[in-house]
């Protein structure tokens, strides 16, 4: 406000309104900064708390034994704090659920963006997104009460609460995320690129595979990773449906029979055991350490999503 210094009277007369709106802008800015910082600070505090409570475990259990120990018997005497079965449980349900959710989610996005008439799109897209608003406990309930008994009866299994059941329910949660983000990405491919392809005598299918999908790959991969990280962090469904057995399924020996084994993913372990453990004990610290592991895994997913979306962004890459 150099001008105001030179002639305070004149400028106050002339830009009275301007000065007021400047003050208001500064206030609005301050509000934004505070709200931005608020979530940042809260986030930092949560991470700090998580680490403070979790790091205590490593005085008693070596990090290596914690991560790669094959036995999780926290209440035995002496207790075992090996979370490898929990990690494999989490990875397995995430992997299997993405094997289901990625083709269905991307397929739905392709259908919506390329095949469906505007009227169908208008109806189906909100319906898919509505699926995302289903509370996870409802999905868990469906898996537990509907799918599990059916599966147990039809396939003559000891339990219907297993990897495949949990994966199907998680897939239902991931599909809307994947479909919705992928569809936006496909829709955002500039119309003139597929047009150029068609004008060169490409069929609609060739155009889709060679131009439209590569153009949307950045967004599609973001959607896939976010869908997967959602499945990884999801607690209620796996708590209710995955069976809860802290064991490492025999992957190769019983392929694909391991799909029907029960597992105990990381978030389910925390949710199930936190209420029953005395404050400040080794078990208590171990659960926080599990939280740390989960935090790093989801952080990894998010970094991967950012990297992939950069990697496939067709700025100068030109490798596709």
């Amino acid at each position, binding site marked *: 406000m150099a001008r105001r210094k030179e002639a305070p009277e004149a400028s106050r007369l002339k830009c009275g309104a301007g000065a007021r709106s400047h003050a208001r802008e500064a206030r609005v800015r301050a509000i934004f900064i505070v709200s931005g910082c608020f979530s940042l600070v809260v986030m930092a505090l949560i991470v700090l708390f998580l680490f403070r409570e979790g790091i205590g475990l490593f005085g008693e259990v070596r990090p290596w034994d914690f991560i790669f120990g094959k036995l999780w018997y926290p209440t035995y005497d002496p207790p075992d704090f090996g979370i490898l079965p929990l990690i494999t449980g989490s990875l397995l349900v995430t992997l299997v659920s993405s094997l289901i959710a990625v083709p269905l989610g991307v397929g739905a996005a392709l259908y919506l963006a390329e095949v469906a008439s505007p009227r169908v799109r208008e109806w189906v897209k909100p319906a898919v997104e509505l699926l995302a608003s289903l509370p996870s406990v409802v999905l868990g309930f469906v898996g537990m009460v509907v799918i599990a008994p059916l599966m147990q009866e039809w396939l003559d299994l000891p339990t219907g609460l297993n990897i495949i059941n949990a994966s199907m329910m998680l897939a239902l949660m991931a599909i809307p995320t994947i479909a919705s983000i992928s569809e936006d990405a496909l829709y955002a491919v500039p119309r003139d*690129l597929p047009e150029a392809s068609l004008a060169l005598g490409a069929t609609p299918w060739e155009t889709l595979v060679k131009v439209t999908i590569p153009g949307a790959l950045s967004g599609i991969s973001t959607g896939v990773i976010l869908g997967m990280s959602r499945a990884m962090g999801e607690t209620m469904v796996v708590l209710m449906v995955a069976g809860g057995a802290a064991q490492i399924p025999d992957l190769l020996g019983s392929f694909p029979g391991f799909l029907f084994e029960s597992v105990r993913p990381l978030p389910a372990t925390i949710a199930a055991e936190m209420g029953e453990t005395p404050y400040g004990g080794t078990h208590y610290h171990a659960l926080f350490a599990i939280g740390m592991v989960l935090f790093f895994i989801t952080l990894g997913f998010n970094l991967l999503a950012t990297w992939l979306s950069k990697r496939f962004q067709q700025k100068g*890459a030109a490798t596709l």
Partner: protein
Amino acid sequence: MVESPARVAAPSPPTASPQENEETVLEVRRLNFYYDGDALALSDINMKILRHRVTALIGPSGCGKSTFLRLFNRMNDLIPGTRVEGQVLFEGVDIYGSDLDPVDLRRRVGMVFQKPNPFPKSIYNNVAYGPRLLGLCDQTALDGLVERSLKQAALWNEVKDILHHSALGLSGGQQQRLCIARALANQPEVLLMDEPTSALDPIATAHIEELVGELRRDYTVVIVTHNMQQAARVSDETAFFYMGKLVEMDKTSLIFTRPRHAQTEHYITGRFG
């Protein structure tokens, strides 16, 4: 008055229909075109487009030039709700009446768009896109075709060392020439150009105009332009459209010196449009 074009080929008698003894590649007969069911965009158009000539389509904005141009490679089919009446003959075959596959048609009738639209791929892969669709995967043949197309589009010298760099790193004018090369790599018979220089600076425009002059030797070119000087410089024939109708079409030299319709004269002298 606009200067008389320097590039008009052999002088020919100024008859009313000088096309009689020339070879017709594209012929439009009693054509009506509708957007959205019944919004008439073109009405009762009759026109012949001659082999190895550059035909310019001029007229005020919204008169239907782009719509008309996109009829020749059936790009209007992509817009839902459009309808064509009448005939468009390509080498004597009605491209709307017969069971001609638009995909085959578009390989024979190439198109360059108003805005340069290279794929976000390498320069090489842009040019090789069409031939690869046709199943050409022999590396030597492909290399040769890419080189030839880029040379025809007067771009080879500028890009021969960066063929595997992204096409998006090129300037606008280079991108547009790349799009021309990409269309030429399909070895089309006809090249449609919709205001190919409207997004370019004067130097790039001059490049492309020069190029169009040379393409005439091997291809039949139909070009939409808003620039009267450009039409005068590059074309052999000029068609003037107004409000969805073809007002008149003739040798470019005649259109620009002795137009038969007052509307045409007003337009080319800049009194409206």
